[in-house]
């Protein structure tokens, strides 16, 4: 199979998987109470709608007569039920769901939900728009985490060389303690430790903003409003490019945006503040990868060509780096996708703890009571798509490095 044919085949498979994921989501959506579904479909109520989002009008309000003995049906909900196909067979509902999903109609943020309370600007906005606000931050955090991940892969190779010596045991303990340590506990403990080391409450001010303090100051996606030189009163004291204090323009990527607006210190500080959360999510998911690297390295080091290289008198460093290392990299790529999925799954918790405004934070807020199902399903699908795409990239790299994969 040619490389392009392999990529096309994988892309088709990806579409099948995304259709499957949408179907699973549809099954879950069908299970939730009908009011919640309608609330996340309808969007903000038109001006003067009696009864707001309640599926039934409360007696005494709006068009419902005050002496009504039971709740009156709300015409908007009658319309929504018809539009979602809830009065039709399941396959029609499924078709409507798939059509809406692929035409990017992912519903609206429901207005009585916890998510809308946490982010008033998100109230009644389309789910996809809101996710779009928060995605760049998560992507940037993901890139930082990926760098941390790549920097720690050599640890596994080193463990293989030091097989069964204290260093190997140490790395083994490190990788397993990562798997055994819950994100939420580790994050909180480290956050506490950092705050105790560098002082407690509002650091930005104690360092005299603007100045942005030192490495680990206070977390959060952006410093408090007082830290900015040209605050706009209309924007809660934030500069005009930082809408509401969490949505940066024009790109949405915090580092890039801060740099565009000439604030290089803040740009650098953003990366520093992402470092600890990134290290935690990677530490929590890297255990398998390190073990895998170590074991595949051990296997490769037992093979004939490595022995030949040694017998020919090559220095050990060259044997490890050129012969064994390069061959174990191939195998390592197979679990890389799994590890990336692992650390992305850690984002809801870590972003909640460190107050970073990414998609994970939105997911965490959306599942709090009252639940915002539109955002919950939207962010889950978004996470899934990111991971499926990451897996695709990893697999294509694997096929490119190891022709046996695409030929076999």
């Amino acid at each position, binding site marked *: 199979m040619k490389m392009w044919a392999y990529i096309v085949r994988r892309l088709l498979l990806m579409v099948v998987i995304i259709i499957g*994921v949408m179907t699973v989501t549809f099954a879950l959506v069908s299970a939730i109470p009908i009011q919640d579904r309608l609330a996340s479909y309808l969007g903000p109520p038109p001006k003067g709608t009696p009864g707001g989002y309640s599926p039934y009008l409360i007696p005494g309000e709006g068009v419902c007569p005050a002496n009504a003995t039971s709740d009156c049906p709300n015409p908007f909900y009658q319309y929504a039920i018809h539009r979602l196909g809830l009065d039709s067979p399941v396959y029609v509902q499924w078709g409507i769901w798939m059509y809406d999903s692929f035409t990017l109609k992912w519903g609206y943020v429901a207005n009585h939900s916890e998510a809308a309370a946490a982010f008033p600007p998100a109230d009644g906005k389309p789910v996809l728009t809101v996710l779009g606000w928060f995605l760049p931050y998560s992507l940037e955090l993901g890139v930082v985490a990926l760098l941390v991940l790549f920097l720690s892969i050599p640890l596994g190779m080193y463990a293989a060389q030091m097989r069964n010596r204290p260093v190997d045991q140490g790395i083994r303990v490190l990788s397993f303690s990562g798997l055994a340590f819950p994100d939420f*506990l580790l994050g909180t403990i480290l956050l506490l430790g950092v705050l105790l080391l560098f002082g407690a409450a509002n650091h930005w001010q104690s360092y005299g903003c603007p100045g942005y303090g030192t490495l680990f100051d206070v977390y959060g996606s952006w410093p408090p409003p007082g830290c900015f030189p040209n605050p706009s009163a209309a924007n809660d004291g934030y500069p005009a490019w930082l809408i509401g204090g969490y949505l940066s323009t024009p790109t949405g990527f915090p580092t890039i945006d801060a740099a565009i607006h000439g604030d290089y210190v803040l740009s650098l500080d953003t990366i520093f503040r992402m470092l600890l959360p990134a290290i935690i999510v990677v530490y929590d998911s890297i255990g398998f990868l390190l073990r895998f690297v170590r074991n595949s390295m051990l296997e490769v080091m037992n093979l004939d060509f490595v022995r030949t290289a040694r017998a020919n008198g090559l220095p050990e460093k060259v044997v490890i780096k050129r012969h064994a290392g390069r061959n174990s990299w191939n195998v390592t790529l197979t679990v890389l996708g799994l590890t990336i999925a692992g650390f992305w799954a850690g984002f*809801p918790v870590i972003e909640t703890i460190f107050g970073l405004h990414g998609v994970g934070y939105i997911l965490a807020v959306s599942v709090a009571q009252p639940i915002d199902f539109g955002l919950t399903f939207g962010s889950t699908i978004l996470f899934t798509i990111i991971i499926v795409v990451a897996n695709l990239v990893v697999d294509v790299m694997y096929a490119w490095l190891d022709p046996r994969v695409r030929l076999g």
Partner: protein
Amino acid sequence: MSTPPDVYESSTGAPSFRQRMAPRIAQTKRTWYFLRRNGLAMAGLIILILIAAVAVYALTTPLSYEYMTEYCATNGASCPFPPSVCTYPQGTVPPGPGCYETPANFPSVIAPTWASFTQPGPLPLGSLTVDPPIQYFYNTYDGLLRGSDWSLLISLTIVGAGATIGLFLGAVSGYMGGVVDEGLMRLVDIFLSIPQLLFVIVVVTVLITLLPSSGTDFASHIYLLIGGFLVTWWPFYARLVRGQVLVVREQKYVEAARASGAGRGRIILRHIVPNSVYPVFIQMSLDVGTIPIIIGTIVFLGIRIFPSTYLPEWGTIAALSVADLSAFWDSCQIATCVIPWWQLLFPGLALFLFAISVNFLADGLRDALDPRLRR
């Protein structure tokens, strides 16, 4: 004409159980030999045995809240839901036996003291504030003790059921091949492409909305939690087993079984499943440690799995202890700052030791069972 004697039959008739199991016993002995030389694996095994002992001890021991419940029942007083701690501010009348006096300026924290180990009805691991506005307390010691039962029960059920489903679907898929295999594996692909943690969170979130909001029926909530986990848990096992079965079904002994007329069911159940089950054991032991952590994450994110938040389960306790650090921040505003380190340390340690011991054991098993890594 006489038939020739069956060469496989011993002189006493059918081979005894011992004879039939001889290869497997030898294999177990060999694994044990390699496992014993692995220090970390042995440490894991010892910690696991200790945890199991704690769980058995907890089953046989009435906890302090049970004394309190009895007191409340006989005196007609209203009691908080177990296993909370009864407290009263300094200088007021104690509401009952086993109640703890709290300092006036830090009503939410009772630190563990050395003295509390020696007193009857102690609070050896300190208290855990669950809900500051209503001043609700966990007795951390009680919670962790009883939690060992719940954690082990829930995670063993989930892993056992998930592995069983995965084992059979994987075995069928791998052995049958063709359309069955293709269909099942695409299904597995779809399920595995959703990050497991998020999948569990979403499934549990959806499932709890199906339960009536009132009533404190623990059992249905726990069934639901287990069900929610199972939806996301079997696919990984199915894929694992299928890969193993693809190797095993090409072996000579399977061919021999088929040649001697064994049916599909018999081959799958008697030949393929027992021979592809080791990786499943390893994966199971890894997963057992993960489940309390995931439950903790769900509780941390504010999803109310249990009708009241007070089910003593390790993950839940750890999550509650972390989620409620606002009490700490409040007390830090006052000159003397109390960090509730015991809230973080003890539940965290329980979770951590459990997870890391099964990880060590699983890794040791993998090394012992994989001849390529042994050298």
